[in-house]
């Protein structure tokens, strides 16, 4: 599904050069739920941004669904993001001035040939999936953190993407709400077969996924499958 080969990312600011990623080789098969852990600043978000085609690596090759993403135009990248990838962020990134329903509809706005009624119908289904059917007319400021993240997940899944990239989705939530979010993601992975890559700081969350990769200083330091882990 996703294949990264020898990825390197160097941030060039005025005086300093930050190597955010180095020699990253990673393959995420279809349907896998992968979690990534590592100390702050080790390059996890950078990795996710590269996987999500939001950022380009300084070196290396990204493949999605067998397509090598190389010298793609902005429009084509946007199209792939829209069709295949859903994003969930630590700080939710909801548009404050749009209702819950309108927030969830956003990805479909960038897809041609979907009518307004079709959009809201699908948004309602997505909200049902995350248990927020009763909150469609609310605004983000009227919701709790957990509810906001559920809206963000509904938004990520409305376009039925094959991949969901979640950057510390439970990072701002208490453990009960975090648990809820985690369960929704697990359901998505099990029932719809959505490939999920999740960055987390929470060992307990990571242990619920099939595979855990650890990063340190821009490099991958371990790769463990829970399946193996449990066998041991």
């Amino acid at each position: 599904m996703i294949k990264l080969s020898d990825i390197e990312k160097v941030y060039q600011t005025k005086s300093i050069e930050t190597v955010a990623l180095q020699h990253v080789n990673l393959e995420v098969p279809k349907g896998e739920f992968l979690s990534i852990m590592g100390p702050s600043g080790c390059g996890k978000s950078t990795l996710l941004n590269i996987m999500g085609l939001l950022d380009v690596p300084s070196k290396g090759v990204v493949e999605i669904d067998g397509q090598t993403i190389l010298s793609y135009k902005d429009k084509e990248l946007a199209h792939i993001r829209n069709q295949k990838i859903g994003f969930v962020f630590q700080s939710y990134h909801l548009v404050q001035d749009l209702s819950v329903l309108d927030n969830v509809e956003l990805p479909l706005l960038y897809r041609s040939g979907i009518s307004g009624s079709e959009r809201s119908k699908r948004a309602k289904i997505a909200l049902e999936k995350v248990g927020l059917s009763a909150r469609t007319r609310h605004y983000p400021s009227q919701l709790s953190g957990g509810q906001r993240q559920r809206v963000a997940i509904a938004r990520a899944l409305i376009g039925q993407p094959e991949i969901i990239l979640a950057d510390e989705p439970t990072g701002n939530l208490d453990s009960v709400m975090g648990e809820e979010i985690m369960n929704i993601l697990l359901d998505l992975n099990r029932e719809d077969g959505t490939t999920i890559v999740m960055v987390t700081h929470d060992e307990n969350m990571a242990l619920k996924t099939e595979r855990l990769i650890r990063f340190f200083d821009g490099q991958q330091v371990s790769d463990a499958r829970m399946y193996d882990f449990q066998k041991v």
Partner: protein
Amino acid sequence: MIRHLFKLIWNRKKSNFLLITEIFFSFMVLFAVLSFVFYNYCNYTKPLGFDHQDVWQLTLRTNSDSTAQNRLIQEQLLQRVKSFDEVEHVSLSNSNVPFAFSMMTNSLSYGSNKEVQANVYDVQDDFKDVMKLQLQQGRWFGPQDDASRHRPIVINLMLKQKLFGEEEAIGKLIPINDSTNYTVIGVMDYYRAYSEFNAEEPAFFSRINLQQNEHALWSSLLIRVKPGTGVAFEEKMVRELSRIAQNWTLEVTTLEKMRKSKARLTLVPMIALGLVCGFLIFNVALGLFGVLWHNINRRHSEIGLRRALGASSAQIYRQFIGEVLVLATFGLLLGVVFAIQLPLLEVMQVESVVYISALFAAVGLIYLLTALCAFYPSRQAAAIQPAVALHEE
């Protein structure tokens, strides 16, 4: 997408309120100034009804009290002017010649149409040829009017409409007092003598009859000279006439000069208003630009989010331009609601077409202005890298 933008702007109406009011006021100012300009232009394009080229005004001012003497001199002057080879036609007139700063009005009543105010011009038979007037119906004054029981007048179309509507005008009697009447002998299309920028007003010509008014004096002579006649003749004429009218003040000017100074009276305030308006709009544009710039910089994370969800850079660009146009639409809707009252209520005696064209032009200009202001900030927004935008939380 348009519906989405309307929703977005509507939900942000509180923070957009200032911008919307600003656009509203700019529109109102622009609409007012354009209405004024279009009104003048609209009048300017209409026919004057006469030809003022090669027509001179000779102002006659006597300095003595002897009426009989003065009257004699006036008639001698008239005869002398007529006798010059360079002169084609001459007519006595009051001071309200074309483009003069002088008006004379009279109110006429006919049947149920009471007290219609009209400009009145006292002229001689030759006036038609001096000013090259065109008649639509009936005839101009002639010697046959010497014996007329009533006082003959020629009216313009507008006065005809006001007095008689669709009825035949020729032959109608309009009472002056208990014993005398005007009789309408002719109708002309237009006579717009006050200024090129003024609208047509009701007007009529009354015939000067030297035999019947033995003591009257008129202050002007209108003279049509042969084309190409210049200052040399003007000097010669004044010199010769001064010999006849020794104590009189004689002044010659051309109607073309008078037209120019009259036009200045409209053009100068129009240009001044245009400049003030331009300056105002420029300020509004600067403000608009600043606010848009600020707004877009505040919305980096939203831009990043939209990019992540599948918006291309071009779509972000279009969204921001679109938002500004929607914003303008709100301000303009408000403005149009006010502006449309003028033609609807017929507040002033101005044709609706003036308002309507000013309205459309103002709407167009405001859209153009806002789009121009949005152009650069929107391009900045579109250039923001999606990952960078999300990073800045």
